[in-house]
């Protein structure tokens, strides 16, 4: 292929230049954020250990008014430093590297000059959107201060280099430090206390004993006649609830998945709009777990009604399946579609004859997998009034102290859950194996 002469790049519009700067911007924001995280962690731990200021249970930090600007500016400077003097994690994640002329490494003094130039350049950066700079360069990029280039674009011209051990690079040490800090912080924030765990083992000893001696008193008998049902009934309710939600969800998700597939919709602006709206909707719906949706539906159709659970699972299933499905549609082999388009077929005929046969097996596999997940969720959705086997689980759990064999009954419910979940997991895995 032929590349047009270099002079053409001068004619890029400011928008194209702005888009080309995205990796550099993202890399810097990531570095800034990681330094911010370190600052937060250090302050938290300082407070925790030296009681400089009180830290409450959830780790509230109270800084004086001038404290925040100091933290923000300090972390900003640290990010700038790590950008000018080394290969920071942001730069390596977005595939950027600082090069001198002829891809030589940049010496320390030049880097110092770059750090100074970075400050001078801060206010002048909008100028980078105009003029005839190469794409993706900022005002402080020059032969003197080095140029920040995407490694992927210039990798053919790079001299061969021996990879360095991780503990000799700034990036490796930084990551290791970050991990250690996070670990320490996590230990404190999640209130991990192994000593207490061991000491209180006796407290839970009888629970384990009771759980392992389940009592199936209510296998087919209702727990409270007239008000609740039997274990088997609730188990069936769970399975059916999940089945209904999965099938209905799959039926709705099937057409939606084409609207959320870039290769089907992305031919014009209108299609692109629908695609984006659909994807945003899927992602938003998907990020709310169905048990949280069930809180609302329990109010809507009645507390303890399996319909509430089914609706919540259904809504979440649509989003989850539509996203998985549309990713499958995007991953289809484009060759056959091309071939069918050349026969003069309409767009939907291309979908019907080229896309659908390719995606059917993975659709089935995903639907089965979703049924699996829905069954698991259906076992606990009763906590917020969604019906199913969880009704009994939480009923007996709340009766602890009032009922002598409450934990034994919980054990029976857990055994029932394990059996059903395990069996369905096994069956669906076998079927998926067969399809795939």
């Amino acid at each position, binding site marked *: 292929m032929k590349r047009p002469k270099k002079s053409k790049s001068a004619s890029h519009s400011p928008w194209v230049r702005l888009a080309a700067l995205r990796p550099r911007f993202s890399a810097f924001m990531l570095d800034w954020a990681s330094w911010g995280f370190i600052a937060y962690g250090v302050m938290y731990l300082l407070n925790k250990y030296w009681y400089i200021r009180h830290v409450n249970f*959830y*780790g*509230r930090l109270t800084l004086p008014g001038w404290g925040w600007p100091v933290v923000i500016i300090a972390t900003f400077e640290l990010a700038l430093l790590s950008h000018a003097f080394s290969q920071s994690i942001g730069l390596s994640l977005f595939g950027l590297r600082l090069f001198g002329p002829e891809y030589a490494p940049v010496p320390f003094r030049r880097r110092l000059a770059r750090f100074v130039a970075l400050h001078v350049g801060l206010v002048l950066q909008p100028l980078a959107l105009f003029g005839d700079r190469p794409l993706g360069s900022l005002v402080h990029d020059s032969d003197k201060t080095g140029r920040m280039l995407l490694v992927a674009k210039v990798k053919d011209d790079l001299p061969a280099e021996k990879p360095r051990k991780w503990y000799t690079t700034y990036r490796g040490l930084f990551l290791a430090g970050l991990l250690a800090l*996070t*670990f320490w*912080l*996590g*230990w404190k*924030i*999640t*209130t*991990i*206390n192994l000593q*207490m*765990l061991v000491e*209180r*083992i006796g*407290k*839970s000893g009888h*629970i384990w004993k009771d*759980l392992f001696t389940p009592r199936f008193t209510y296998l087919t008998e209702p727990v409270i006649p007239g008000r609740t049902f039997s274990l088997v009934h609730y188990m*069936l*309710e769970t399975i*059916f*609830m999940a*089945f*209904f939600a999965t099938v209905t969800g799959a039926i709705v998700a099937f057409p939606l998945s084409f609207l959320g597939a870039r290769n089907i919709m992305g031919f014009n602006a209108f299609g692109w709009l629908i695609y984006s709206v659909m994807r945003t909707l899927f*992602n*938003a719906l*998907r*990020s*709310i*777990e169905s*048990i*949280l949706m069930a*809180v*609302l539906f329990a109010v*809507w*159709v*009645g507390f303890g*009604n*399996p*319909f509430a*659970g*089914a*609706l919540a699972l259904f809504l979440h299933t649509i989003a989850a399946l539509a996203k998985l499905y549309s990713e499958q549609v995007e991953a289809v082999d484009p060759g056959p579609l091309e071939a069918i388009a050349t026969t003069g077929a309409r767009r939907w005929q291309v979908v019907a004859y080229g896309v659908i046969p390719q995606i059917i097996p993975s659709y089935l596999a995903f639907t089965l997998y979703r049924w699996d997940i829905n069954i698991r*969720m259906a*076992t*606990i959705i009763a*906590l*917020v009034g969604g*019906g199913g086997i969880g009704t009994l*689980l939480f009923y007996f*759990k709340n009766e602890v102290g009032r009922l002598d064999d409450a934990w034994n009954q*919980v054990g029976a419910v*857990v055994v029932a*859950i*394990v059996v059903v*979940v*395990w069996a369905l997991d096994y069956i669906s895995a076998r079927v998926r194996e067969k399809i795939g």
Partner: protein
Amino acid sequence: MTPQDQYYAGFMSKRPSWTKALRAYRKDLGALIADFVVLIALWGLSSFIWNDLVHGTRDFISVAPWIMLVVCFELALVWESFAVSPGMRLFGRRATDDRNGRAVIGRRFLRVLLLHGLPLFILPILVTTRYIPWQDRLAGFRSVSAAEVPDPRKPWYRTSWMVALAGLAVAMYLASALFTQVDLVKLFTNASATSEIWARIVNPDWSILGLGVRLLIVTLFMAFMATLFGVLVAVPLSFLAARNLAHGIIGRTIYTVLRILMSIVRSIQPFIWAIIFVVWVRTGNAPFAGGLALFVHSVADLTKLYSERLESIDPGPVEAIRSTGANGLQVILYGIVPQIINPYLSFTIYRWDINVRMATIIGLVGGGGIGQRLLQLTRNWVWDQAIVLMLLIMVAVWAMDYSSSRLRERLN
């Protein structure tokens, strides 16, 4: 033959002949049981639908159970002798007339009669170590595997097994709709019950944002710690739970015990684990309890994912390293680890993603984090604050989802 097959071929080849006979027998028996189950399911589901719609009762059987069992058993036998049943399809069995023509009805009935004895046909295997399909021998049929007789091409609605399965699916769907009390009318008439919620949701009370963010941090750390410790435990366990690495009686025993244990632990939701851990750990340490629950589930899940990946590694490099005289640890370090490092990372990120999702809701049973406060708020009907927490969860989960999928893309 895939590399794995070659790898296992060693201990697969020395099978005594009676196990072969048993396997052939198992196919015929399996087909029969499968058909029996399909028929019972069809009967049960349709009578449930009938009873619910007509009598308003919720019974799966309205006759004596033994009648249902006997009738279904007989029907299964007839089905297998007169058509291709789902069970035969599943186990890849066909019965053809010896002369390759259409069997006369009399002989098909004879086959039905003989099939009654199928459960007893296991006895000759124990003596002769051979399986003789008497039901076909005596009725002049030939039992063959499906591969030997090509099926005539028929549209799905003209094959009994497809029609039956389609009917089963429809019945299952209808029954599930009735069982879960799906009521679209109620959905609309009762909508007003939620009007107050919607009214509060559209006016979020942002004063809880600060607390929400702090709770979110706790939640994220809960997921992080659970994943980290989960990985630390699951990585060594996965080597013990991989079939191709389990040698000797001790190795096989450990493998079997671990796999069973892990699949049991995995099928119990972190939620249920949290219930136990909340009692165990003091209530003041709620995030610890939630983290422990996530940790236990992560270990089981990751061990399964990891060891399955281990089982599908390419045995070639392992063999090559072993042939240089390397010891067990060296074989693992140089032959296996380079092959699994990226998939392991990918699974870990995937699990972290799941843990973040679970951590947001594990608080519902007292496991700490943002979910605990959210449940309190909804119970107290403070929806204007609850929606703020929900939005925070959405943002966190979405960000996690996005970054984890980007990271995994990069790994592959």
